[in-house]
């Protein structure tokens, strides 16, 4: 009797109970991808608050036999559900409450004054949502060429919404419409937001001339009074939710957070929403996103298509914003820099900063940051409206 025969029982137990024995190539690849995300977050500081916990969640979810992603189910013995499974089930799939609280914190962090001072920026925020709809059609067109890789209408909506460049809207919409691709759409949205500085400048340069990029705008906007800042979230909330009720979970919470901020009478609550609350929710949400990407779900050729279509949505959104900016420059009585349209994608504040830097590069006198913040925050509202529209088509609360 050799050593293996003597210890056959022990080896069998090790095969069942030790992770190494159950590690296969797809899991190893996903763990490496998770490590890649962590490296990008630490070394390049690309969206570290998002990519680091997503990468960690990905690694944890792909380590075999941990049970971390076991979701609670009726009749399950106590303690059998994993913590990541609980986050996934109650935070993202069944109750989908986490993205709404992120929006609440974003609302408390956002100053809408640049938008209130220049309401035309709303239109730039709308134009930049065009990418959502082109990628929606692109996702459906995949089925014409490769029927097995085709996407359903709900999946196409979820892919298109990546073009809004808004993480919580992408997560919320996908969680309700196509939870099977939520991890990848959310990761795509956050990754492209991190890569704004790489993606947007070539598109802006392609669509505008040096003279257009150099257009000088007065650096200051009109001052916005406190009553205006208080009334804005209330009026906007009423208008949007009465027109598209399904956008209420996102728009309602965004503007509620903003009302807390601007009211000036609930400072502690506003500070909590801006700091502790959004930090705690970010940890839970991003770990959940990472955990929603087990190898068997992601190792699919369609994943690459989702990434490509999401990128296309982002690029088309930027381009549409710039083209609309050029139209506004033609009809505007005052000098108008068409690059501002690119800030309509709601990657706040990165895309506004890109426009500002490009403005200064082309004309040292230009200071476009406050002008760009208007379309930038309008883009947040625009993408939430687009997400609410998609939900209204398929979901009955």
């Amino acid at each position: 009797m050799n050593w293996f025969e003597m210890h056959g029982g022990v080896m069998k137990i090790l095969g069942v109970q030790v992770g190494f024995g159950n590690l296969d190539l797809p899991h190893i690849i996903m763990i490496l991808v998770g490590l890649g995300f962590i490296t990008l977050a630490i070394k390049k500081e690309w969206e570290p608050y998002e990519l680091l916990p997503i990468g960690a969640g990905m690694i944890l979810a792909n380590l075999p036999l941990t049970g971390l992603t076991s979701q609670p189910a009726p009749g399950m013995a106590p303690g059998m559900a994993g913590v990541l499974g609980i986050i996934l089930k109650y935070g993202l799939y069944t109750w989908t409450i986490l993205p709404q609280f992120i929006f609440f914190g974003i609302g408390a962090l956002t100053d809408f004054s640049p938008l209130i001072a220049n309401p035309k920026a709303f239109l730039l925020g709308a134009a930049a949502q065009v990418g959502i709809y082109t990628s929606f059609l692109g996702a459906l067109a995949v089925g014409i060429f490769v029927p097995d890789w085709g996407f359903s209408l709900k999946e196409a909506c979820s892919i298109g919404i990546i073009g809004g460049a808004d993480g919580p809207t992408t997560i919320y919409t996908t969680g309700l419409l196509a939870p099977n691709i939520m991890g990848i759409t959310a990761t795509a949205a956050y990754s492209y937001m991190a890569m704004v500085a790489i993606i947007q400048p070539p598109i802006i340069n392609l669509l505008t001339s040096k003279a257009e990029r150099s257009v000088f705008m007065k650096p200051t906007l009109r001052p916005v009074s406190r009553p205006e800042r208080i009334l804005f979230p209330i009026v906007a909330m009423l208008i949007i939710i009465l027109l598209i009720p399904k956008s209420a979970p996102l728009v309602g919470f965004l503007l509620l957070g903003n009302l807390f901020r601007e009211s000036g009478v609930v400072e502690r609550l506003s500070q909590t929403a801006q700091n502790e609350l959004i930090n705690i929710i970010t940890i839970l949400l991003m770990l959940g996103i990472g955990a929603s990407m087990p190898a068997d779900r992601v190792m699919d050729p369609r994943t690459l298509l989702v990434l490509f279509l999401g990128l296309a949505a982002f690029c088309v959104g930027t381009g549409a914003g710039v083209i609309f900016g050029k139209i506004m420059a033609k009809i505007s009585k005052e000098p108008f820099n068409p690059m501002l349209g690119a800030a309509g994608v709601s990657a706040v504040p990165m895309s506004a900063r890109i426009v500002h830097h490009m403005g200064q590069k082309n004309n040292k006198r230009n200071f476009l940051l406050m002008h760009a913040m208007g379309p930038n925050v309008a883009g947040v509202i625009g993408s939430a409206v687009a997400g609410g529209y998609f939900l209204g088509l398929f979901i009955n609360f």
Partner: protein
Amino acid sequence: MQPTDWGQAFSIVGGGLLAVFFIMSVLALATHLMGKIFASAAKKKEAAQAGEAKS
């Protein structure tokens, strides 16, 4: 995978673009009007204060 109903797909796109542009236009208009109202109220207040100071 069911074949795509392209008629429905294009109506979703048309409706979506219309909804986004319409809502954002309404918001732009409402915000513009709000600004005008507050500006005129501020002007009236200033004029009243100037009148009081004169008298």
